């Protein structure tokens, strides 16, 4: 039952990623694309966690944590760039 659920949830997350990709290409403004990227990295953490459950291994935890941290920092840096035209003041 569990393996079936993991596959089902993975399909849901992949559909979510495709919708994000659509917004990334279609988004009328830079801020929309930024929001799509931000959502995409959270969804990819979800995929990695699901892979860990599927393979029954906790090794993927560090990768998920790294993506979470780098994703937040990159969102903050891009926001600053759009706000000020400069990242490091």
């Amino acid at each position, binding site marked *: *039952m569990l393996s079936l659920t993991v596959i089902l949830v993975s399909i849901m997350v992949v*559909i979510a990623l495709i919708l994000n990709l659509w917004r990334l290409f279609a988004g009328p403004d830079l801020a929309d694309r930024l929001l799509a990227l931000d*959502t995409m990295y959270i969804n990819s953490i*979800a995929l990695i*966690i*699901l892979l860990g459950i599927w393979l029954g291994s906790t090794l993927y935890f560090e990768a998920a944590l790294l993506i979470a941290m780098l994703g937040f920092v990159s969102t903050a840096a891009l926001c600053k760039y759009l706000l000020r035209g400069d990242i490091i003041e």
Partner: protein
Amino acid sequence: MNFILELVVSVFLLVGGIFILVGSIGLMRLPDFFMRLHAPTKATTLGMGGLLIASMILFTLREPGHISVHELLITLFLFITAPVSAHMMAKTALHQKLKMISRTRGQALVEPASQQMAPSGETVESGKS
């Protein structure tokens, strides 16, 4: 016992997956940026919480004596950073004066908000612009 464990984990996984999907559908469906911002920041973060709790329960109860709580770290990190990045993106959008759909109330506040000023006088209710 094993069946109940799988059932609980499956329910958490499904709830998480549904919320992640709802977040992205909102991102695709809602009409303007400020409304789009609501779906990913709330629904997707809660969905991740569901997935990570499922992973935590599974790896803790699968083999006795082995406790797996480090997923808590990602959950906490996401719950702390999600509102911060949402705030920064809203700030960016206000600064760039992105359009809101016309029935948004209080659009007169965009001007003072983008310059970090206090609203002049009381909050003005000027819906149509």
